[in-house]
């Protein structure tokens, strides 16, 4: 119903109007849509799907049914994506850098290009976080301490070859500091390690910073501009380091899905992503919105692939 809707930020009013328009007969979707999350329930992918769920129902009149298919850091689900029927009623969450790094560093059973992304809707910007009582007041304090004793400072994060691992590598590349990255089995134990003093800092996201509140101090976030929920936290760019990124999330469809359906799904997600209430909810939880619709998704992926390929080599060489 909002086929021509492409520029979400320019069209907030249009959405409000569009929501009132009656649904054309036999429009897609006319039955519930299955939304497969390649991770366990309770993580960031699940939470953002839960936020999207009611808006999807409001726009389409159909339910969005969330299912979980965890395993091998998402690879179990992605390697089976193209086996589903491509009728538009099965969509799957995709995550970067996972879908780029996994095929580069292991043999996960799929190639990055096998995955048809129809929309990338937000990212959780990397954030360097320390305890509230940490001696490092600013990013410069931290870098100075790291330079005094290269490798002696530790930063916890979730997993090896993960977004947090990439963030640490980027940080080292940009600042020249050497920080020992300590991988944990998830965000919860990584944050616990930070709060308990086992590590000096944690690579997390703005979502982590939002969840931990006063217990932590965020030294910098990897965004182009400051996060609306953290107006006092500088970006790495402001401080002179070109680090922008984090863990990106979107949805993909089986490769048998017709072009028309891909576009329709992209339009629906665009509409959700432009809803001011939705944006407010997401930003309060620490997410940062981006909009990469289906038409731009392939180019955007090529750009990210080139970016991560270099990092992947460094990560592989570092071990």
């Amino acid at each position, binding site marked *: 119903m909002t086929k021509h809707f492409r520029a979400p930020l320019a069209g907030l009013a249009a959405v409000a109007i569009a929501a009132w328009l009656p649904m054309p007969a036999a429009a897609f979707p006319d039955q519930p849509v299955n939304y497969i999350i390649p991770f366990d*329930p309770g993580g960031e992918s699940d939470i953002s799907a839960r936020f999207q769920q009611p808006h999807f129902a409001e726009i389409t009149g159909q339910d969005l049914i969330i299912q*979980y*298919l965890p*395993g091998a850091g998402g690879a179990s689900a992605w390697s089976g994506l193209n086996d589903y029927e491509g009728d538009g009623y099965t969509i799957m969450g995709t995550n970067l850098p996972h879908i780029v790094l996994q095929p580069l560093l292991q043999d996960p059973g799929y190639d990055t290009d096998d995955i048809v992304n129809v929309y990338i809707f937000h990212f959780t910007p990397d954030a360097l976080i320390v305890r509230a009582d940490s001696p490092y007041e600013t990013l410069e304090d931290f870098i100075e301490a790291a330079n005094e004793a290269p490798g002696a400072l530790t930063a916890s994060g979730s997993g090896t070859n993960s977004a947090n691992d990439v963030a640490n590598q980027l940080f080292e590349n940009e600042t020249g500091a050497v920080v020992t990255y300590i*991988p944990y089995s998830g965000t*919860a134990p990584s944050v616990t390690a930070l709060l308990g003093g*086992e590590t000096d800092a944690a690579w997390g996201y703005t979502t982590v910073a939002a969840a931990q509140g*006063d*217990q932590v101090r965020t030294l910098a976030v990897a965004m182009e501009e400051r996060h609306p929920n953290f107006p006092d936290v500088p970006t790495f760019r402001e401080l002179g380091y070109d680090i922008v990124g984090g863990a990106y999330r979107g949805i993909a469809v089986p490769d048998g899905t017709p072009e028309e359906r891909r576009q329709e799904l992209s339009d629906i997600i665009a509409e959700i992503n432009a809803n001011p209430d939705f944006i407010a909810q997401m930003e309060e939880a620490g997410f940062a919105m981006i909009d990469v619709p289906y038409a731009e998704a392939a180019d955007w992926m090529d750009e990210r692939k080139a970016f991560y390929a270099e990092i992947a080599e460094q990560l592989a060489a570092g071990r």
Partner: protein
Amino acid sequence: MDMLGFLGEALSARNLMFALLGVIGGTVIGALPGLSATMAIAVMVPFTFALEPASGLIMLGAIYTGAIYGGAFAAILVNTPGTPSAIATTFDGYPMARRGDGDLAVTIATIASVVGGLIGGLLLLTLSPMLAQVALRFGSTEYFWLAVLGLTLIAVLSEGNLVKGLMGGCLGLLLSMVGVAVVGGDVRFTFGQRELLGGIGIIPALIGLYCIPVLIDMVARPGQHLEAPPAGRGFRLLEAAGIAIRDFWNLIRSSLIGTVVGILPGAGGSIASLVSYSEARRTAKNQAEYGKGAPGGLLSTESANNATVGGGFIPTLVLGIPGTPPDAVILGALLVQGIRTGPALFETQGSIVYTFIFGLLIATVLMLPVGLLIGRYAFRFIVATPKALLVPLIAFMTVLGSFAVHNHPSDVFVMVALGVVGWLLNRAGYGPSPIVLGLVLGQIAEQGFVRAWMIGGARGDFMGQLIVNRPISWAIVALILLTVCLPLLKTLRNRRMKEAS
């Protein structure tokens, strides 16, 4: 509102109904191997958005505590832990059922679960902010030693056959290494099978190693699976209560261990019940009976695993760090409802939090009648159903349960393969428990050690990181030494006395 007001709110007809429904649903799901509390809670989360936050939370908490308790049924009646938390319940529960005391075992498990759940819940109610600090004091080093303490149980469980027990444990450790390593990212022992990248799942392994040999055994052996009780025998509630009261300290100690282990993110019910079992056995007067159907073993494991429920909510609510996987789902539900967790939660959202905690306590109490009734039905069902029906039914559940973990057939293959291997090893005298202990604890031990090594390396003080500067580790290592050395000393003394006489 004061505390009595919150209690009254939790006792409202609506909240009581949600607690009751949650406990019933949770108990049934927990009793079916493979269907986990995490999945049950995830399925119910969208429905709770339509409810008052406190009511929704009460239902989720009731499902959680019911599922942890329900895991005992399958452990006792068919030697298969319904949830990983019930692994140690098989040690004494199944031998009790085999000698005709299945009904008593179920009732003991019910009493222990209620007591454990209440102690965990009361500590959550009263000491949360203080106890949350425990989660922060436990570093990678302590997880490593805790896993080693759990592994010492192998020696305890395979008394008289230590070599076979240790070999089983090593097989389990090898199995735990399969897949992509969390620390280091290297791909190990997958033999090119991408299905193995995620590792060997604990639930398919549990079902395969414990349940398949029992199934084969049921087919191979004439007669009923379990002896029918004499007609007119009731719940044996008084008998069970008597046992629980006589073993009062075991119950309290196990509940406290359960609460503390529950607080640790990344430990959970299986470790809590293993550690408390080890402690219960070490301090018991009738040590020799443990593993052969000692009610004390059952009391310790079931009180400990239900105590982890309350314990797990402590870091979830106070620190915003989920103590267990079901807590992570509940934390997500809180976030979507706009409730921020953290130290201020008890002040800003006091009415929701306290109503929820009282609701959780009420749900725990409700487990007594609900559990006794469901347990009696489950026991009668297993006893009365002819084997020709029971075996295919359980076989079907094993496939369903292992498929449900990831909705993927590869877990079913793992289950069947480990089942056949487990049966063959059983015949050769290798029990399933050492293998399972290796599998469950291997990851925790490995990650804990490697991280201690990395952090110690970065700071140039590995031994300090591993043990020297870690008082909590001293205590755990002391327990390890006690567990390993006391039986050795006892054997030596017995031998000397024999020689003297």
